[in-house]
């Protein structure tokens, strides 16, 4: 099959699976998950074929696989939609295909396939367990089929976004994912917290989307196209970067890039729109892994990487950053450290990971803001692998803990609170080792893990290009990352079990652990494709394939960085230091009371939720409820109408009382009646009924009239 045709087909299987499950197979759980996983496998296969063909092409950046069709007519031309596989999308497609497939398989085990239906389970609530042979065992998710339908639709959105050759279909995929995110976070809609989290996620990302839509409108208005390869021509970029936009002294290119970037702020949960991501942990764990680690949040970073030529229009390597780039770098670096501080004080195993995701995405955003294009892509991919691994691992831990909870029957114990765990390494060895690998990759454990290579590259780029503030900020954030990761590993797996439930935790089935193993291979191995050329000892052993390949997406290959010891040493110190400190501080801690980092400010996430409530939500509600609805609409506009009513009545009664009754009625109406009456009354005496009188009267009248006629008419 032609590669172009194949690319068109990649997103389709999951959406077909969605319709098949919704319309036909939703009663049959086995068939539903087979359809979904089969579809994910087909997409994976297609992606791998395309990927292999893509890396076989020399200069793929100059001659990408591309094809397009007409979609929306716009006057003389058409808005085209199409597919494009250039090095960037090939690299992204690779990790999306792997993580999506792994998450699909994992979901089978996570939702307790093969277990009996629960005793009191209801659609819309997590399963509560069933009684079988006198024991309480996990029960299957009541809406099992629906879950697979939703994640199928979600995968469709992500694949669409990646293979798009234009901003329009990118936006389509983007919005589909937003919708699925809403449906999946609120999957257990029986829980009020899940419903609220779903709406919050949707609304917050929607704010970003509106700016993105404005950016797209502006871009289309300025260039007449939305196709990447038509926008990223040298002339178009030159024109855009030299035309002032009239807003904040930005060039048109800068303003468009910032508007599009605000979309990313929402989608990738960057400061100040980060508030939705931690709450999104209300969804089932495979969802957290899929949406909030591997795919949707990565899509935000992908979009800003995609728009890099626009963002950096008028900038060249080594020059001072453009205002738009500075803005992006600032948001990224600030988010990186800001979220890391919050992660330190969280006790929920998934929330720690959620804040760490926000923080790591900040690293990527900061990298792209400094112009470290390849480093940003590299970290995006390695992060997707190890964060998906960590989320799935945490799901495995929670699932194991739930087993313990069912065993003891004490449902007050929160299976997600890390202080209820401890010592799980013995109970859940596969989960432990894979989680350890993921955690070390996240911390940037030197040389072995993928996270080290990608994070080191960002730090090196910041240092060598002289962005010292960013360098220091990110280094501190990296230190804290290692610290809270080790805190998490220590509290969860090391030491002894702190509760009965943890003692009875159990390792999960292969459908859950196998994906962990596969992902941990990538969490280590993927780093080796991008070892810098000038790295001591290891550099040069293998060519820095990643740099050559992904860098080829840009018009000019980014230069290879010179080697410098300072960032390398920094990486080593922050990773190893943070890990050791995390272990040292938490190895003997038994309860939250002993934890010195339970600072209220951090624990409450700097009170952002509360602040937004008072700054935006309440005033907005007041504005619509009181100002617009009550004062304007009911007050002014309706009162005007209601004045018409009484006014018309007033005019009416005035006319009636002062004209109609006295003049028309009494003068003309009654008056004429009165006159008629008077005449009648006065004529009545002549109506006597005597024939003789009438005759006399007739003769008198006749003679008078006859006389008059004679004298006046005939005689004249």
């Amino acid at each position, binding site marked *: 099959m032609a590669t172009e045709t194949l690319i068109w087909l990649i997103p389709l299987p999951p959406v077909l699976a969605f319709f098949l499950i919704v319309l036909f197979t939703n009663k049959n759980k086995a068939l539903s998950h087979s359809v979904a996983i089969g579809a994910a496998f087909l997409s994976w296969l297609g992606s791998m074929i395309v990927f292999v063909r893509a890396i076989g092409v020399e200069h793929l950046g100059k001659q990408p696989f591309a094809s397009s069709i*007409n*979609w*929306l*007519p*716009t*006057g003389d031309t058409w808005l085209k939609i199409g597919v494009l596989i250039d090095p960037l999308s090939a690299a992204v497609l690779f990790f999306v295909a792997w993580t999506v497939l792994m998450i699909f398989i994992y979901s089978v085990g996570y939702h307790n396939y093969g277990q009996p239906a629960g005793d009191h389970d209801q*659609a*819309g609530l997590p399963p509560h367990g069933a009684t079988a042979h006198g024991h309480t065992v996990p029960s299957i998710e009541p809406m099992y089929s629906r879950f697979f339908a939703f994640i199928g639709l979600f995968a469709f959105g992500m694949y669409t976004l990646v293979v798009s050759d234009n901003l*329009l279909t990118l*936006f*389509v995929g983007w*919005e*589909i994912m937003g*919708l699925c995110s*809403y449906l999946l976070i*609120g999957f257990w*809609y*029986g829980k009020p917290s899940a*419903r609220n989290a*779903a*709406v919050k996620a*949707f*609304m917050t990302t*929607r*704010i970003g*989307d*509106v700016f993105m*839509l*404005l950016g797209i*409108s*502006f871009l*289309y*208005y300025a260039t007449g196209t939305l196709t990447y390869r038509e926008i990223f021509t040298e002339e178009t970029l030159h024109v855009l970067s030299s035309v002032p936009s009239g807003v904040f002294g930005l060039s048109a290119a800068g303003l468009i890039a910032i508007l599009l970037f605000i979309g990313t702020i929402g989608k990738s949960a960057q400061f100040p729109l980060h508030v939705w991501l931690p709450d999104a942990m209300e969804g089932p764990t495979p969802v957290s892994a899929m949406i909030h680690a591997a795919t949707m949040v990565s899509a935000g970073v992908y979009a800003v990487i995609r728009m890099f030529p626009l963002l950096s229009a008028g900038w060249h390597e080594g020059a001072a950053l453009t205002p738009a780039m500075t803005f992006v770098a600032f948001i990224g670096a600030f988010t990186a450290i800001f979220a890391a501080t919050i992660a330190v004080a969280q006790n929920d195993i998934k929330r720690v990971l959620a804040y760490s995701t926000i923080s790591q995405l900040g690293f990527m955003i900061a990298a792209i803001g400094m112009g470290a294009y390849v480093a940003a892509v590299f970290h995006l991919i390695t992060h997707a692998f190890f964060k998906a691994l960590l989320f799935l691992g945490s799901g495995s831990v929670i699932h194991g803990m739930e087993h313990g909870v069912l065993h003891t029957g004490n449902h007050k114990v929160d299976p997600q609170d890390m202080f209820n765990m401890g010592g799980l390494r013995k109970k859940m060895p596969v989960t432990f080792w894979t989680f350890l690998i993921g955690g070390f990759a996240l911390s940037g454990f030197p040389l072995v893990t993928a996270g080290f290579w990608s994070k080191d590259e960002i730090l090196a780029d910041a240092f060598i290009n002289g962005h010292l503030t960013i360098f220091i900020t990110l280094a501190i954030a990296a230190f804290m990352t290692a610290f809270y990761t080790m805190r998490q590993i220590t509290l969860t797996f090391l030491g002894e079990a702190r509760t009965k439930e943890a003692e009875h935790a159990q390792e999960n089935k292969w459908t859950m652990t196998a994906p962990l193993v596969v992902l941990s291979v990538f969490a280590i191995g993927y780093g080796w494709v991008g070892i810098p050329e000038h790295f001591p000892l290891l550099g040069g052993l293998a060519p820095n394939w990643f740099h050559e390949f992904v860098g080829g997406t840009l018009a000019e290959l980014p230069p290879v960085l010179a080697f410098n010891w300072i960032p390398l040493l920094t990486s080593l110190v922050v990773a190893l230091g943070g890990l050791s400190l995390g272990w040292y501080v938490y190895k003997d801690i038994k309860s939250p009371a002993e934890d010195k980092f339970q600072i209220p400010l951090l624990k409450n996430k700097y009170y952002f939720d509360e602040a937004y409530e008072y700054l935006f939500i309440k005033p907005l*509600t007041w*504005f*619509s*409820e009181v100002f*617009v*609805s009550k004062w*304007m*609409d009911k007050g002014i*506009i*309706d009162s005007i*109408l209601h004045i*018409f009513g009484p006014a018309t009545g007033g005019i009416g009664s005035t006319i009636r009382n002062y004209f109609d009754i006295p003049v028309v009625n009494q003068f003309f109406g009654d008056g004429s009646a009165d006159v008629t009456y008077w005449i009648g009354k006065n004529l009545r005496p002549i109506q006597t009924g005597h024939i003789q009188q009438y005759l006399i009267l007739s003769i008198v009248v006749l003679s008078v009239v006859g006389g008059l006629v004679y004298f006046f008419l005939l005689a004249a």
Partner: protein
Amino acid sequence: MNFPILSVITFLPFAAAIIMLMMPANRKTEVRGVALATAALDLLLAGWVYLQYLLGHLTGYQFIETYNWLPALGISLKFGVDGMSAPLVLLTGIVMFTGVLISWGDFDEERHLSAGIQDRPREFFAFLFLLAGGVFGVFVSLDLFMLFFFYEIAVFPMYLLISIWGWVKTREYAAMKLTLYLFIGSVVALVGALVMYWTQYQNTGILSFDMIQMESAGFSASFQYIWFLPVFLGFAVLGGIWPFHNWSPDGHVAAPTAVSMFHAGVLMKLGAFAALRVGIMLLPEGAKQWAWLIMIFAGVAVVYGAFIAFVQTDLKYMIGFSSVSHMGLVVLGVSTLNHDGLVGAGVQMFSHGVMTALFFAITGMIYDRSHTRQIPELGGMMKALPFAGFGFIIGGLVSMGMPGFSGFVAEFPIFMGVWGRQWLVAVIASISIIITATYIMIAIRRVFFGPMPEKLEGHISPITALDKIAIFTLCSCMVLIGIFPAVMVPMVETGVENILRLLGGA
């Protein structure tokens, strides 16, 4: 002479109304059968016209029929459709068909269920069809006098339909408010139209109400400057333009379901369409002069309607104000006077019509079963009425402009067009996208996914097969246009090109 398809489409509902009134009142099923058959036939004919126009790649006015009516005054019955009106004719057919379907309802004494129209269906359908015939007439009329004639026919039965079959609490107030607003608007517009008629006679010596003729009547710039606003705003009142919108949400709420569907789905389009056809196409210079004011009104309407919809607790009021907001987008697109904006406005008229009809249909189904429209008193409908739930969600996605649905195909060009005129308005109007998403999501969360209140438990009987056909018909239109915009956009473009030609290629 070809088959006079447009006259048949227009007069068929009138004929059916008369036939129904002659049937015995207790033959309810037969009356409904006649209504459904007529509506189906009209939909087929409207669909045939649409497809002919689309697949034949036609441009300009087609299917023209002319019959002299009062030649001395230049009044004739002249029908024809172009790329702008053909989708609206189809829309009317769809709303009429689905409106009859959902009014059929379900009656069961044992379950205390009385859905749809059970009270005097004969008179109800007769009035509804008078309304439908009038609406068809406005969309196909090429004669200004006839346009007014049908316009008044369309407005008049609303009063009866609302005050007889409406919601007991507000129906009299709402019916009177609506009638007052609409008649005042149309009288103002009528004055403008008569002045145009007379001025044309003075300029050219031709005594004619033919609108194609009037396009070249040579109205002077100052004449257009004076008369554009009365004519445009007079019609736009029916389009729910701010600040003359208040009749519309009250009317929606008080009206019975099928009438709400007609009212929001089609009748409001009538106003926007007539404002476009008479105001902008006949007075293009005036339109250019006043576009800024129309843009401000529309921009305010978009945000204002969304804000009010956001705080409504009554489902129908929420949809009513959301209509104000969405119709604001139509007028906003019109006010750009450029290609993108007008195309978006044309598609939005269709898209919004189908979407609101769907919303009102489902709200009606819920109300008939739960006897409340208060969002906080509802819940759990997803489990009880899953088909309606999915329909409402699709409608919600259209409403918030989600790509892949018709709302996006309509709103995206509107925003591009507005950005081309005045970016600040685009930015302000875009606030509505966020607010719309909020209230739609909150309503869906509460009504469909929230816990079902105890007193509703066991009272929500499933919807009928006819209801499902109606929901399916409406949803498939929105999805089809969303995925393949080429089924509508090129057609609307031919209409827009004609408007742009009149505007002098601006």
